[in-house]
């Protein structure tokens, strides 16, 4: 895992100092070394986290004749198989790095190469022969890639902070991106929270050639029409899923030249990946878990049950509310997005534990809920359709008790909740029926926006227009999965809570559930088998029932959460809070109404952060994160340190003292 950046210039030679500053801003992503390539048109920068072929693999890297260059962040897990194919076609390799496979695959197959890659990547590839720069991102958006245009130049980087080191790049909030965040929890690619800055959408590449820009989607999630699903039965599908997940996990565990650890959350998904490693490899495993001092959020008992069964060397970090408050500014700096929950903060502390334990790579369970239908929103979708077929039926309204058993103990509350939350927007023809109640809940935060920060228009209609025509024929569950894959997964789970919290401490995450083969196989299965009745991830449970302890396998699903308002007010507010939420600071940012912010803070202070509504908790975290972004990113001083040493220089620009390649320490 690494940081990448660069410049494509239309007239002037790219500034070598600028690309080094960009690399400096990405030092945390690759502390093991750095490098840049420059010629008369392009500069490619790289900071390296050495994982594969650690003794070689300096980037940027070229093909045999130096006509194709790449700067690469991520892993192509099937690089061994691709290398064999390419060697058979006459390509010569100098290293054993997956990076080198990319340039040769491009020479051999062009953009069709991307379909052959199984991995997680963002890269910039410069083909001097045709004058084409390609920015490419993996299928699900595991690895980030941002870009902007300024003064006739294109700047790109793994994180937006690399772009902001150029003083010509405007730093202001994108109000549409903010509106999308206050609807879906994140902007929808290519939009970002910052005006003028875009991101390459997942499964896409951008081509720049001869002054033209072309965005090409090489992959998108596809689901079968209802009735056209793979006909295999439950046991056959469970066996097929098991086989593919074992292969995907082993690939991610074994294809590394440094030790790989595993996260264990206490839930099913990481239990599956850790158990596969433990059961199907010979290597001793180190596992890492988050604990919370607040029992409401702690999953320690489930973690301990699994660890007893696996016998791994286990490491834990126990997170207090104060820890979250203290680390929050740093978390927001790395996340570069407004946050509605503090949940990324403990993930930051967990990756720090991994780093301190001497590890650089962890396998985790991210993606299982999206690919195999684990989220409550999917189960709610089924209940809402059931209710929507006869909205007046009191019997159907009782189905909500299947989702939330506590309602059976509160018979007076259930009908009202059912009507209020599930009874809204029950238009069975609505392609986003699954998500309307949740989007409504999040959108309530917009009441705090100033008039200047409000936009007209509806973010949800913009998203549903992007749904493929064929989605009309899909099962409602598949449509709900598509919406998650377009919003929360790439925009929040893999970004603010994933890549950014891992890379802040120079840790690479690997995600077997987002393997290309696993995804394709899962999408072809009947929706009714993924959630059988209302049993979420039924096939996953069936597939691994023999190696997961029953207590973990059968436990009620608990979404990963951390204390929100309580983190900042239970034990007295952290030092930074008053400063960024003062009336002057809120007015200067111009996003939220200062009097409403003051009332919200007063309420949280009075209640010591306890007993706030779900919406107030989200409001508070949104205000704090937006104010911190304004202070740190928009008003901040973007003067990064030097790129990590040693630095490889491949300077082929006419102004340099002749072509020269060297290593600077």
């Amino acid at each position, binding site marked *: 895992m690494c940081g990448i950046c660069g410049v494509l210039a239309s007239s002037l030679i790219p500034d070598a100092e600028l690309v080094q500053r960009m690399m400096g801003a990405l030092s945390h992503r690759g502390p093991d070394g750095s490098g840049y390539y420059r010629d008369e048109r392009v500069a490619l920068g790289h900071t390296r986290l050495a994982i594969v072929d650690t003794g070689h693999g300096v980037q940027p890297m070229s093909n045999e004749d130096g006509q194709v260059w790449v700067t690469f962040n991520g892993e192509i897990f099937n690089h061994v198989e691709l290398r064999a194919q390419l060697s058979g076609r006459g390509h010569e390799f100098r290293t054993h790095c997956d990076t080198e496979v990319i340039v040769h695959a491009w020479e051999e197959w062009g953009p069709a190469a991307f379909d052959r890659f199984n991995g997680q990547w963002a890269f910039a590839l410069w083909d001097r022969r045709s004058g084409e720069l390609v920015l490419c991102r993996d299928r699900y958006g595991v690895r980030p890639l941002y870009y902007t245009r300024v003064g006739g130049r294109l700047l790109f980087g793994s994180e937006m902070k690399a772009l902001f080191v150029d003083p010509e790049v405007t730093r202001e909030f994108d109000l549409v991106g903010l509106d999308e965040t206050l609807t879906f929890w994140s902007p929808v690619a290519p939009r970002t929270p910052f005006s003028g800055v875009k991101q390459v959408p997942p499964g896409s590449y951008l081509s720049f050639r001869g002054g033209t820009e072309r965005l090409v989607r090489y992959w998108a999630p596809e689901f079968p029409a*209802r009735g056209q699903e793979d006909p295999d*039965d*439950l*046991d056959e599908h469970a066996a097929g899923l098991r086989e593919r997940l074992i292969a995907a996990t082993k690939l991610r565990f074994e294809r590394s030249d440094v030790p790989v650890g595993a996260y264990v959350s206490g839930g099913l998904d990481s239990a599956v990946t850790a158990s596969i490693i433990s059961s199907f490899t010979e290597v001793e495993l180190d596992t890492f878990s988050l604990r919370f001092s607040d029992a409401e959020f702690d999953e320690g008992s489930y973690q301990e049950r699994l660890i007893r069964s696996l016998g791994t060397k286990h490491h834990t970090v126990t997170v207090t509310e104060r820890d979250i408050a203290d680390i929050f500014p740093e978390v927001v700096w790395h996340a570069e997005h407004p946050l509605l929950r503090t949940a990324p903060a403990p993930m930051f502390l967990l990756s720090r534990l991994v780093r301190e334990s001497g590890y650089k790579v962890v396998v985790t369970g991210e993606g299982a809920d999206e690919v195999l239908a684990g989220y409550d929103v999917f189960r709610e979708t*089924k*209940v809402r*359709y*059931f209710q929507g*077929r*006869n909205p007046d*039926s009191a*019997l*159907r309204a*009782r*189905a909500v*008790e*299947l989702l939330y058993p506590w309602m*059976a103990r509160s018979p007076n509350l259930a009908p009202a909740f059912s009507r209020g939350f599930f009874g809204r927007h029950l238009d069975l023809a609505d392609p986003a029926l699954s998500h309307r109640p949740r989007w409504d809940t999040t959108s309530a935060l917009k009441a705090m926006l100033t008039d200047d920060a409000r936009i007209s228009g509806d973010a949800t209609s913009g998203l549903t227009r992007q749904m493929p025509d064929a989605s009309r024929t899909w099962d409602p569950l598949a449509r709900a999965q598509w919406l998650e894959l377009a919003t929360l997964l790439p925009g929040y789970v893999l970004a603010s809570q994933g890549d950014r919290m891992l890379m802040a401490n120079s840790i690479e995450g690997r995600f077997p559930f987002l393997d290309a083969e696993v995804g394709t196989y899962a999408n072809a299965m009947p*929706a*009714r*088998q993924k959630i*059988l*009745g*209302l*049993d979420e991830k*039924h096939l996953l449970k069936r597939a691994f029932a023999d190696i997961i302890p029953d207590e973990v396998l*059968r436990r009620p699903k608990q979404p990963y959460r951390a204390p929100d308002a309580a983190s900042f007010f239970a034990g007295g507010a952290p030092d930074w809070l008053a400063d960024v939420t003062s009336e002057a600071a809120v007015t200067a940012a111009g996003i939220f109404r200062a009097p409403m912010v003051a009332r919200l803070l007063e309420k949280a202070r009075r209640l010591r952060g306890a007993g706030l509504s779900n919406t107030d908790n989200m409001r508070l975290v949104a205000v704090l994160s937006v104010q911190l972004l304004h202070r740190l990113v928009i008003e901040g001083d973007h003067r990064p340190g030097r790129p990590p040493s040693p630095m490889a220089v491949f300077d082929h620009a006419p102004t340099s003292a002749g072509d020269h390649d060297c290593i600077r320490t």
Partner: protein
Amino acid sequence: MGTSSTRLNAGELAAVGAGSTDPELRALEVAIFVEEVLDIVLPDEVLDARHLGTPDGVANTVDRVTGER
């Protein structure tokens, strides 16, 4: 048995609601499954354990609702 009820996979049907201890709630989960697979709407009067509590009960109910019995 009618055509519709034979489209319900016995293995799948048997596993629906297996974790539920309340027979009436389990019947609702079975109803969700049946409607999902067959794309039909069951009337309120059959949304109970008497009609949907056993595989035979489900088959008879579906056949009656779809007019195949």
